[in-house]
């Protein structure tokens, strides 16, 4: 299933809330956590990452990955945490609303 537009940012923030990770690790995580239901073009998380870094929600640092290669690690900032909290709240509200309508139908 395709990702709903705009949710990618939120998912990335959620994944990063578990700790710093590099780009392809995040992509893997999303796939694993969603039990393969969400198919994301792996490359498409990079524009999202750069955009969020630009906005100050995550920060990046070069480091060593598990197989000893240089990789860029992303980490949630305080602003990012606040952003994640507010986006999750909104998401839950919207889903409740949609669920209510669908349930009633």
């Amino acid at each position, binding site marked *: 299933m395709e990702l709903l537009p705009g949710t990618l940012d939120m998912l990335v923030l959620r994944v990063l809330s578990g700790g710093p990770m590099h780009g*392809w690790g995040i992509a893997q995580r999303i796939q694993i956590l969603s039990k393969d239901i969400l198919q994301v*073009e792996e490359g498409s998380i*990079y*524009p999202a990452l*750069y955009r969020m870094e*630009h*906005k100050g929600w995550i920060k990046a640092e070069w480091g060593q990955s598990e197989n000893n290669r240089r990789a860029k690690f992303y980490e949630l900032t305080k602003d990012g945490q606040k952003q994640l909290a*507010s986006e999750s709240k909104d998401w839950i509200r919207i889903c409740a609303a949609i669920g209510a309508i669908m349930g009633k139908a």
Partner: protein
Amino acid sequence: MCGDRRHYGQSIGASHVKAFWHTVGSQLRSFLMRSRIEAEMVAELRQHLEELTRRNIAEGMAPDDARFAAQRSFGGIAQIEERCRDAHGFVWLAQLLKDFTFAARSLSRAWGYTLTILFTLVLGISVTTLVYDISGWMIFHSLPYPHPEQLFFVGAKDKQGPELYYHPALFLEAYREQAADVAQFVAEASNPTNVVINGEPIATFASNVSAETFDMLGIKPSLGRGFMNGDDRDGSDGVVVISDRFWKEHFGGSPDVLGKKITIDQQVCLVIGVLAKNQELPFYFGGDILKPLVLKPDPKDLFAPGIFIMARLRPGVTTGQALAVLAKVKFAKLPMWAVTYFKDRRPILSDIRNAGRHDSFWVILAAGAFLCSIAWLNAINLMLIRLLKRRRELSIRFAVGGSRWQVLRVLLVECVVLSSAACIISITTVYWSLPIVMRALYGDDYSLEAGFWTWGELKFVVELSALTWALTAIAPTVRLLRSDVSSGLRDGGPTTGESRHASRFRTLLVVLQAAFAVVLLIGTGLMVRSFQRLQHVELGFNPVGKVKVRVQFPNGYELGPEAKLQLYEHIRMDLSKLPGVRAVSYAEDALLNDRNSYDANMLMADGTLKRVPGDFVDPEFQQAGGLVMKRGRWLSGKSGLLEVVINERLASIRFGNADPVGQSVIIDLSGKKPYTVVGVAGDVRSSVRSAMEAWFYAPAWQRPTLINTFILRLDGDPEKGFSALVRRTIYGSSTRLGVCSVQSIGEQIDVSMWAERLACTMLKGLAVVALLLTVIGLYSVVSFTVDSRMTEFGVRVAVGANDGDLIRMVMHRGLAATGIGILIGVTVAVGMTRFMRSLLFETEPFDPIVYLAVAMSLLLAAACASWLPARRAARVDVVKLLRAE
């Protein structure tokens, strides 16, 4: 709705602001480190790809398949890279730079077009700036005083008379005492006494101003100080402030000028201050030397001195309120004649900017605006043509995936490059040409240093350029947004197949250009004709070789009437001995005095009193002034004899066809007395613009106090140095008698027409430029049309058309468009020139000769502009065309 990012992102306002600034900072940082960021991004993405490949290999795929599968699941790497670049946010800046370089390159390749459009824009912008600077300055310029809207000149006006700003001295005290609540008043009185530096009388005079003037106008001298409150007390007024120009001319601009002495009417004054270089002073308060005003009003001599009064209204007071208070001011100690004289006059407050302004500046400004419009229309036309020529290139851009916005951006950047280039070139042009133009217009008063440059002009050029960019960008934008993208590729040739709509729009622009040009030219033509008529007006006497010397005794200087007359006689003898002088006469500001004469009540045949202007002159006046006697003789000047000479007009009004000589007429000069008419003189105008009026000439001995002019008749026009000679001669007879001005009548006439002359010169320049621009515009359009129709011409030649046919076809288009433009322009001109009526001298706004001349010249210009491309069409090489297909 679900998934709408904006909806999710609804956080508190503050974090939005923080995010914004973070974004801006990040953008800047990214821009500066862009190559490093680019490298890192590429590395990161590549790594991810390799990781995926490795995983696929680990799962058992072949290396090539693994790589292929990895690429597929990663997504299109080029597009992702592009999106990442977008996310950084500095893309727009880098892109802009690329656009600029591209625009510059493509413009430099099409240098013919670039030069033409730059030439057009620079001409339009710089000429308009010059016009704005020279004439608009007078109208829009804001005064450099604090709260200038509170400043007014106090004047008076009765029902039919002109506005008068010259008041008796005692008015100031009356206003200050009785109207202090509504305004603060200061006054100026010319001090037409001799100014002597080191024994040499100087050709200037001092201006006496109230001490509070400096504070009221916020004037700060560049050296020394201005006047303070104690300076206008009698005895402490021996101080002067001089202008920058006077300082440079007479003291060499040296900083030790403070404390130097200038003798003004036998009073030694110290220089205490020098005004700033371009210090502006209100119209009546100007001068090279400022001295504190000490007023000692004399009820017997009201206008000793006469003063100009400037008022600064108190905060919150409206002009209506002030006028109401001023109207109630009572003047004590007025003699009887003055009470009648001032009875019907109402006070008026006039904006201090109005003095010295002339309505013809509006015409110049309008012409400037028209010229700018012509330049802009030209530029838009040229841009549209270029756009058409580039259709192919732009269509290709669309085809490789460019959006409309991207193509539009290219065009807009090109407009910016052109407008900026035009702006910079215009600034340089104006900077260097402004002093030259000022010098040409205003004469040697202006130095040629290119230093006449304020921020206002710079701002104007930039604003015009911005407007230029906006206007030139609109047309191509509209064109682009409505165009059919693919048609550019489908066409056979590079420029064929444009819609009729576009071609009609271009023709419309040409028509508009012609219309604007016509209106401008007609306005110019009318002003030029009017000025010509003004210059050739019949004055009633020959102005050549006549010099007027205005003299005045210092205020309060007591010299009895007998002594005064004796002195004047003495001076007359001295002056007659000067080389070239044929006759010398003294009078009360007679001969071309701009209606500044004494109006006396004369008893008419039917018993009514009529106000008739007249001059008090001596027996020599007829010789000196060159008046023509029609009947009888001139005044004998014998003391006690009540003689009068009347002019023809007055003779016919008062006496009809009867011979007035020997008749008696009652005039109220100092009481109603009978005067004997001894002669009738020819009519003389009192100024170039006024009509011939009824006039009388009475003997000067009656009012010696009012005599203030010497009229000299020379063999030819005065030579250089004559004025200094006159000054020295008079100074030799009396060191107290101040010489205000020595001016030939010819010069006086020239000066009185300065505004018209200026307007004419400027308008002629504008007309030439407008014509040039119109020709360029028409040439470009016709040239382009010819180029795009070459194939058609080739075909026509092949089927038997000859050169003449082709030329006629091409020229027909250009002339038709111009013709329509002329018709429109003429209609508009007829409507607009109505407003010029007050500026035109004996010229009707609908002067058929002017209109015809303008139409002819524009058609001729259009013919020339279309003929060259037409010839090119006629020389079409059919064989070459067919081969090109």
